[in-house]
């Protein structure tokens, strides 16, 4: 999948909110406005914040992926056998500076 400049900026917003929120400044929002409306920017920000908070919480609950690599619905025990004791969903994210 190729990412457009707009996609990349949205991904960067997500990455910076989690790892380096001080790097998000007025100039960054001016850049966002080249591709997104104010409504879309707020939607993105709320969505990113929501996911930032919840995925760490879910990670502590030891959720395993619901589907096998070929798309079969799995129980948590089956999923642990496939993905091992520490699947990507449980890897800690870098805390904010």
């Amino acid at each position: 999948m190729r990412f457009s400049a707009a996609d990349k900026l949205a991904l960067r917003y997500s990455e910076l909110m989690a790892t380096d929120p001080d790097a998000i400044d007025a100039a960054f929002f001016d850049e966002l406005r080249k591709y997104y409306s104010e409504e879309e920017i707020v939607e993105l920000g709320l969505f990113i914040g929501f996911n930032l908070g919840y995925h760490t919480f879910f990670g502590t609950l030891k959720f395993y992926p619901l589907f096998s690599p070929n798309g079969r619905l799995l129980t948590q025990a089956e999923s642990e056998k496939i993905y091992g004791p520490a699947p990507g969903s449980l890897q800690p994210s870098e805390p904010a500076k």
Partner: protein
Amino acid sequence: MTYVAPLPKETISDPELSELMGRGEALGVPDDLFPRIAARSPDLAKPFMRALLMSHAEGNVDHRLKEVIRILLARFAGDKYFAALRSRKARDMGLTEERIEAGCNDYEDSALFTEAEKCALRYADQMYLDANKVDAAFYNELKKHFSEAQIMELGAFIAFHYGMQMFMRSLGAAAPQGAR
């Protein structure tokens, strides 16, 4: 001023959002800034405001404890806006600034908190500092003091409020004038 300007209050005509905004202002958390910014995304503003209010002011975990946790998290998130707000309900229930400061700093050694409260504070403290420490043993410790429903209430509250605090930090939101 935040990087995305809040909508003027008088332009928010949705009665449900207005009612939620009024509830936030009555509680003190959030004041009108958060919903006026969220209102730019009308589809998300109402469910997000409802979740923010319900997770904080309702449920079966002591609201005063959740208020201390909320402020601890806001300080960790570096969010000056939510960190400066105070719940009037918690204050009316007897929560003091002394207790808030103790909860945000040396709660482990403080005589002001029970073991259950310390465990809940540790849950919030470790969640975004070192989530690896929030493991099966940690949940077993929580279960000594809280029901599974209360643990999920605490976890979801922590996750949602931290996420919204990081959102407001990303917008450069400052502490409201005259807060507290």
